[in-house]
């Protein structure tokens, strides 16, 4: 038996963090139904990905923190639109790991007392990242905020607000923006093998009494991490594109931890009254305006990008339609498992062998994963919560269902009183893949790089907002110090590429921004 270094407070917190994810996961899953696809064996690759996450995440997260803390990565994540927001880290990271754990428990291959150091560490990493990413709204996830996500600082929100171009249904900008968002959404689902994880929304941000702003991120669009995008996405200019969207006369009452939104009255295209367009990554020092110099330039840019993703969609669809089932399984499982891979990019420790391969410990399970078993076991795991491990004492009334169930098994507290437990799954094992080898090409805001160049630049670069003198200048400090030279310097930096705010500084109110837009 191990000498326990685990204490009561750690167990209480870890079980609480798992319960937070149980409550949100159940709600997300029952309002969506189990996802199936005629093209991809979705439940099969999802189940494979959960095992990959269970066996590898602890080691890979420790590798990332060997260079950069979770809370530092979270701070950087607030200032760009890459795949470490929702659902990437907010939901995918903890839940894929926990779903792998839960499934293995029900196969008899794991006890709820196994790999406790790993479990406590993964949930603690998640907590620190989330609190940092959500620093401006003060929550741990969107669910805790009543399904809302206000990530932006005032400085960044003001730039987005000020630089929106007005549009109305039927005008050329409105149509170009809508067409791009529809095509990019479609492409995003295809890139991500039927999952929504290339898409993310945060907000709403209040612009005036009748108008709210949402920020929509379309991620991993170009030749970058995924082998299946090699060549077919060579013509896509930007890997991560964000659209700022002003919407009138409806309220976004729900922005969930999968990054999806709902509005009352329902959001429809005619309510879109303003748009902006940006690119970003961990080398871009914030959001870079795309085509924002004039209305005409923005229309042309939306059209150009829409054409690029439409072309890539057709090429990618044909490529996928010719894949074997094992290749589809790999692409899907890697998409899911690598949902938080950008953590490694930000830290500058990305290795495609870490993220683009199926760990051999997980690979063993592939022969189990026919369509029927995978569909049924996934449904039991995330919808019915009918696995034996998920049944809890009979007086329990679970949130949302009132049933005596829990998605993720608690750590038994008895490990503090002598119940045996194990510490870790161990190091990363070798991986395999049926996919073509990945080309060493990564599209970034600094051009197409090799993996080694990308890591080197990531390690060398500190975004301005993360420099020691600015990193902790939160809106509470700005409230009382906006006239200080330091606040001015920070706002002037944030405004450096803004069409309307360049040089305006830290003293503007939201009404001032509205007045500037008139």
């Amino acid at each position, binding site marked *: 038996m191990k000498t326990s270094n685990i204490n009561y407070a750690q167990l209480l917190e870890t079980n609480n963090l798992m319960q937070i994810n149980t409550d949100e996961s159940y709600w997300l899953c029952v309002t969506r139904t189990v996802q199936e696809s*005629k093209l991809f064996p979705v439940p099969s690759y999802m189940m494979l990905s959960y095992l990959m996450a269970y066996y590898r995440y602890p080691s890979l997260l420790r590798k990332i923190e060997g260079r950069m803390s979770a809370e530092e990565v979270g701070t950087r994540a607030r200032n760009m639109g890459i795949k470490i927001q929702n659902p990437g880290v907010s939901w995918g990271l903890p839940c894929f790991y926990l779903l792998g754990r839960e499934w293995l428990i029900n196969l008899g*291959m794991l006890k709820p007392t196994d790999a406790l150091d790993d479990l406590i560490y993964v949930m603690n990493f998640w907590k620190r990242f989330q609190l940092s990413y959500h620093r401006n709204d003060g929550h741990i996830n969107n669910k805790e905020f009543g399904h809302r996500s206000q990530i932006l600082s005032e400085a960044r929100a003001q730039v987005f607000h000020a630089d929106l171009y007005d549009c109305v249904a039927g005008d050329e900008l409105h149509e170009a923006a809508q067409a791009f968002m529809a095509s990019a959404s479609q492409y995003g*689902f295809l890139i991500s093998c039927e999952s929504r994880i290339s898409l993310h929304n945060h907000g709403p941000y209040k612009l005036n009494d009748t108008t709210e702003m949402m920020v929509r991120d379309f991620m991993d669009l170009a030749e970058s991490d995924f082998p299946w995008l090699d060549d077919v996405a060579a013509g896509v200019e930007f890997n991560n594109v964000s659209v700022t969207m002003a919407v009138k006369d409806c309220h976004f009452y729900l922005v969930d931890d999968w990054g999806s939104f709902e509005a009352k009255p329902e959001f429809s295209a005619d309510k879109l009254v303003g748009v902006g367009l940006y690119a970003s990554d961990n080398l871009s020092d914030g959001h870079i305006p795309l085509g924002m110099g004039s209305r005409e330039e923005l229309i042309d840019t939306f059209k150009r990008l829409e054409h690029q993703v439409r072309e890539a969609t057709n090429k990618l669809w044909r490529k996928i339609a010719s894949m074997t*089932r094992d290749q589809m399984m790999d692409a899907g499982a890697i998409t899911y498992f690598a949902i938080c891979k950008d953590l490694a990019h930000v830290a500058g420790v990305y290795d495609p062998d870490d993220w683009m391969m199926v760990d051999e410990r997980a690979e063993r399970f592939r022969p189990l994963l026919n369509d029927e078993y995978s569909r049924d076991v996934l449904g039991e795991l995330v919808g019915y919560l009918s696995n034996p*491990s998920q049944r809890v004492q009979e007086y329990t009334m679970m949130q949302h269902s009132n049933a005596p169930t829990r998605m993720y098994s608690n750590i038994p507290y008895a490990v503090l009183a002598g119940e045996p437990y194990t510490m870790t799954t161990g190091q990363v094992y070798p991986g395999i893949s049926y996919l073509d080898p990945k080309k060493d090409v990564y599209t970034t805001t600094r051009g197409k790089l090799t993996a080694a160049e990308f890591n080197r630049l990531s390690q060398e670069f500190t975004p301005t907002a993360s420099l020691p003198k600015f990193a902790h200048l939160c809106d509470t400090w700005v409230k009382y110090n906006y006239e200080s030279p330091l606040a001015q310097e920070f706002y002037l930096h944030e405004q450096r590429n803004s069409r309307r705010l360049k040089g305006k500084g830290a003293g503007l109110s939201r009404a001032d921004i509205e007045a500037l837009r008139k």
Partner: protein
Amino acid sequence: MVKLYVDTDKFGSGQRSATVDAFHNAVKDIVRAKLAANGGHWDSFVFGKSFDMITADDFRSVEKMLLDAGHRFDWSAAISPRERPDVYKPAEGVGEDMATFSFEHAEAIVAAADAEGREQRGQGDNVAQYPAICTGIARYVRSPTQVLAYLTDGVPADTIAIIDDSGGTLTAPILEQFKGVICAGGSTRSHLGILTREYGVPCLMNAKISGIHQGDTVAIECTAQPKTADDYQANRDVTARVWRLKAAG
């Protein structure tokens, strides 16, 4: 035979799905046998020796056990029965039988023709509200082969696609060419629901229909109230109707 930790369980027993139950019992038998061969030492087994002792061949034997008993698996991805036709149930409505194929959902609400000659043939969850009812020609879209043909030759005008795939990828390159969509699965928050809303294509999700064949003229009540997350959570019945206006041929 050694006993597993989960063999004693006060609150849980068995799986909901017979297939999952059979698979899990078989895997647990394998784990018990291998753990016994390791002298019952869990600590050295769970993240060490089990990686070598429990292999892909062991898991292959689990599937074989059900196949040997005569079971054939349901399929969801078209690639699955195409690669292993001996393992999956036959695929219907994806080939030459398309002309006579129809969804026949027991939950479909059907009614005789109304004063306007509209015969209700089912209902579904409306994704987004539009000012007018959507009328077009019903065409089942159920396989990548069919999508590839439409991608090559173009989607026929006025197609209302009938799909049983709530995902957004099968029809990715042609979705915006549909006049409307009737999807037999998912919810208004599924990927296909999201995408049809983005493209402004009227769509009913979770549709239950009966008696609609390839080439029938149909209408979908996309003027109805959309079904929201709150409606799903409260289990509220909010549906829009599907009508057949004219049978094909």
